[in-house]
């Protein structure tokens, strides 16, 4: 820092130099998400004689905590970040191991939770996404000149293999796909040769096929894929949720049925609507207008992320920003795609919108990282 900035801290306050468009788009998504989570849970809480605002309140608290963390992360300088990266990586791996230990808990068929007591649960796989972006970016940023060689790439693969394998054991196929996609994006942006990328893609397909063959995946995950291939397969069973989701969105029409007026939503036709299927609330109650606005906000976030990546001052920043954009883009596409019936049901939340503390914190951490890259981009 220069002496000038020390003398006039107000004008040069990092807060004012943040990417405000990104910050506002994220805040708008969180605000919209809060309303959708509220609508998705209000009626079922009332029916159960519970507080209709309980989910809304927890969602807002999660977001508030996340925003504080994001601000903190944004202010961490690059050297500290690189120093912390191995710790973040090791910490998330430890969390993933803990999930597989007796501390782990199964919720909705996925064994991906650690119960910390007092009703507080953590999903380490969400933080693994942040850790993997940081870890791979750090490794690849070290090679200053030219594309990464076999040694760097091998190290990246070895580093990624650990969390990916641990998540696969849960098993959480959706998160595995996100992690693989992030590694591919980071490697690609680092300039890895095309044959490596192609080879990795083939290897990924082989691993997935092997996982199916060896029975690593639970039948419920396979059934979800079968139901995706043929939604009419079992309208009362596996295909039920996707079918109901499409009915909810389709029946919303252009302007929707009005907030809190969704018959599919209030009739509880879509299980777990506040998490993986939160987009259906937007589709049904706010219609094409609201749902496309939500997609537009996601688009703004991704656009700002890409903008930050291209203006990053160093390879590390560019890789981190690019990895985060890849993560959100892939996860948003899979999540919204499954509610629209063009992707299989994989159990991925919609960034910033779905209910769920771990995902919210991880996503806002990533926002902090983007802002950090942005702040240092012009140094």
């Amino acid at each position: 820092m220069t002496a000038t900035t020390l003398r006039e801290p107000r004008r040069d306050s990092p807060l004012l130099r943040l990417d405000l468009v990104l910050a506002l788009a994220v805040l708008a998504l969180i605000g919209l998400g809060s309303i959708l989570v509220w609508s998705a849970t209000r009626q079922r809480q009332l029916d159960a004689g519970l507080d209709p605002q309980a989910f809304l309140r927890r969602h807002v608290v999660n977001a508030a905590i996340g925003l504080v963390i994001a601000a903190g992360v944004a202010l961490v300088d690059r050297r500290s970040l690189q120093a912390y990266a191995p710790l973040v990586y090791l910490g998330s791996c430890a969390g993933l191991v803990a999930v597989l230990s007796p501390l782990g808990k199964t919720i909705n068929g996925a064994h991906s939770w650690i119960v910390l007591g007092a009703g507080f649960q953590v999903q380490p796989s969400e933080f693994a996404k942040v850790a993997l972006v940081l870890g791979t970016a750090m490794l690849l940023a070290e090679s200053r000149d030219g594309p990464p060689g076999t040694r760097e790439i091998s190290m990246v693969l070895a580093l990624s293999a650990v969390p990916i394998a641990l998540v696969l054991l849960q098993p959480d196929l959706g998160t595995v796909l996100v992690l693989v996609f992030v590694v591919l994006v980071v490697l690609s942006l680092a300039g890895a040769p095309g044959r490596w990328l192609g080879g990795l893609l083939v290897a990924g397909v082989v691993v997935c096929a092997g996982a199916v063959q060896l029975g690593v995946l639970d039948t419920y995950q396979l059934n979800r894929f079968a139901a995706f291939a043929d939604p009419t397969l079992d309208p009362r069973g596996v295909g039920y949720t996707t079918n109901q989701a499409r009915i909810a969105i389709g029946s919303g029409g252009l302007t929707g049925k009005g907030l809190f007026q969704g018959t599919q939503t209030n009739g509880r036709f879509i299980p777990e609507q506040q998490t993986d299927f939160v987009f259906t609330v937007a589709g049904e109650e706010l219609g094409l207008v609201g749902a496309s606005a939500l997609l537009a906000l996601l688009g703004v976030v991704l656009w700002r992320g890409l903008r930050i990546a291209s203006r990053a001052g160093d390879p590390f920043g560019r890789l981190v920003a690019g990895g985060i954009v890849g993560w959100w883009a892939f996860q948003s596409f899979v999540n919204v795609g499954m509610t629209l019936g063009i992707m299989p049901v994989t159990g991925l939340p919609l960034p910033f919108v779905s209910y769920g503390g771990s995902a919210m914190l991880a996503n806002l951490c990533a926002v902090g990282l983007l802002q950090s890259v942005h702040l240092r981009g012009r140094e």
Partner: protein
Amino acid sequence: MNSRLFVLKVLVAALLMTLLGRLVVLQIPDAAQYERAATDNRTRSVVEPAPRGEVVDARGTPLVRNRTALVVSVSRSQLLGQPDDGKAVLNRLSDVVGVPAAELARQIRPCGGAVTQPCWRGSPYQPVPVAQYSATDAAGLRRVLRIEEHREDFPGVSSQYAAVRDYPAGTLAAHVLGYLGPISNDETGTEQYAGVQPSALVGRSGVEATYDEALRGRDGVERLLVDRVGSVTGSRGTTPPVPGSTLVLTLDAKAQQVAERALRTAVEKARTTEARGGRGLLRADSGSIVVMEAKTGRLVALASYPSYDPTVFVGGASPAQYAQLVDEDRGAPLVFRAVQGAYAPASTFKVISAAAAVGSGDYPLGGRYECPSVYGPTGQKNFDSAALGTIDLRTALVKSCDTIFYRFAYEQWLRDGGNRPVDKPRDPMVTLAKAFGLGERTGVDLPSERRGTIADRGYLQRLYDQTKTARCKGSSPVDREYCVDGNRFRGGDATNFAIGQGDTLVTPLQLATVYAAVANGGALLEPHVGRAVVAPDGVVSEIAPRVRARVPVDPNLLGFLRDALAGVTQPGGTAAAAFAGSPVDVAGKTGTGEVAGKQDTSWFASFAPVADPTLVVIGMVSQGGTGGTVAAPMVREVYDGLLGPGGVLPGGRLPAELPGSVLR
């Protein structure tokens, strides 16, 4: 490396545009379809069944009503959701209702494919009724109470009050009334059964079937708003049920009683009588009486023996019960002989033979004809080989000479070319039989009516076409002969036809329309049992009498036939003994049908009073011996009960007005 970043930008844009595109498709062009799906999703219809209409006789006497019963039902889908597929529940239920658990399990299986009766024909999601108890049946109510008091032991079992059919007159007119059965999956949603709920009961036989649409009314529906788990969240409105209409029959319950009693008595008496030719006692396995208004076709009584108790169908007949009802060895009580039984008409057919012989111009009405014991050209004998000398046509009918009719038929057959038939043979007797409606349904408002058979040239040809392949492989001389020219209408076929023997078959109801045409001066009527349908709002739809055709017989010739038939019951006639001292002046014709391998079919076809016939009565007893000894006395008993002193139908006419009790 900016090119790689550019690829990522393009990828992100492409993914977002894909989502947006799909979103637009779902929410703009497909929106209407999904809106309907969302509406269907959250509404459930609760059906309030319409009370089924009552059936009353011509005087308003109730024949079918509804009563309240407690019905125990089992939901198969709920049983299958239990760990042992509901076996424990079925075992407990078996103890309560006294039906083996295996039998209960069979009853609730959905029909279809390889699954045969017993099985459930209704919707697989609908509870299946397995037992029912009258609201006045104390022991039955205690059983239901055991289920209701221990609901936790009977998940998937429910009990509710339901309206079931009740028969205040007992077994009276069981065949006419018919019974109900659950609608099949194939029938649900068809035009005929529009608005009928799956597994609902619909008419399966009798007037319950023919007047089903009027009787069933329209079920009420309440559209309920529900959530995913089926909890009710509101109502979208109710359509109240429209009760079924009341069906007024032409049938007279008292006349029906007279007919059924006469039939039963005649059958029982016949079974103590020796059969002709020392072939043991008569079996008298079945019989029928048709009583019809001669000028309108309104059916006053329709008796069929053996009969059955219609209450076996209330709540569904068990497979064993149903098997008994159609068992030939038990006389197949379910078969409605009057419309579903076809028999050789024997000498009752001679009214048509005589009319055809005279009407063709071949034989003068006033002529006298030789009645030898044997007709030479065919070697066929008279009944009991009697020779009556030279007699007029009236005597030929009164004494039922066969050989005169053999001659008429044979000579007419020769005129048609004999064994080398001319191009368009006249076949006067066949042609007239068809003009009298034989071989065709009468159009009565009862289901499953039989056509009967006219054994004419076409019939022989059809039979030959169907059987020649098999017969030509046979080695017996009979088979070989048939193979050569079995399709030929021979002289013997013509002579057999003339006296109503051979393959020609008629239903008792067909014969009633033939004799009505003779009695009323030539109108071939469409018989009917429905008199009127009275809707719950009081609107009356009367079922008008209908004339199908006029028979091509000169009125003078019909007059001659009436006069001749009147002589049959007078001294010297074949039914003289049966009608000795009869208070009613009856005209009729006896018939004794010879059936291969069985005893004779006993017929008496008649109308009365002779001066101005109002009623036609046809009596038939299968394996009942001669017409004069069994059917004629039976028919006399009917006339005595209807038109005799203290008779239930004085004047032979049904009430002209609808019963006041059905008009509101």
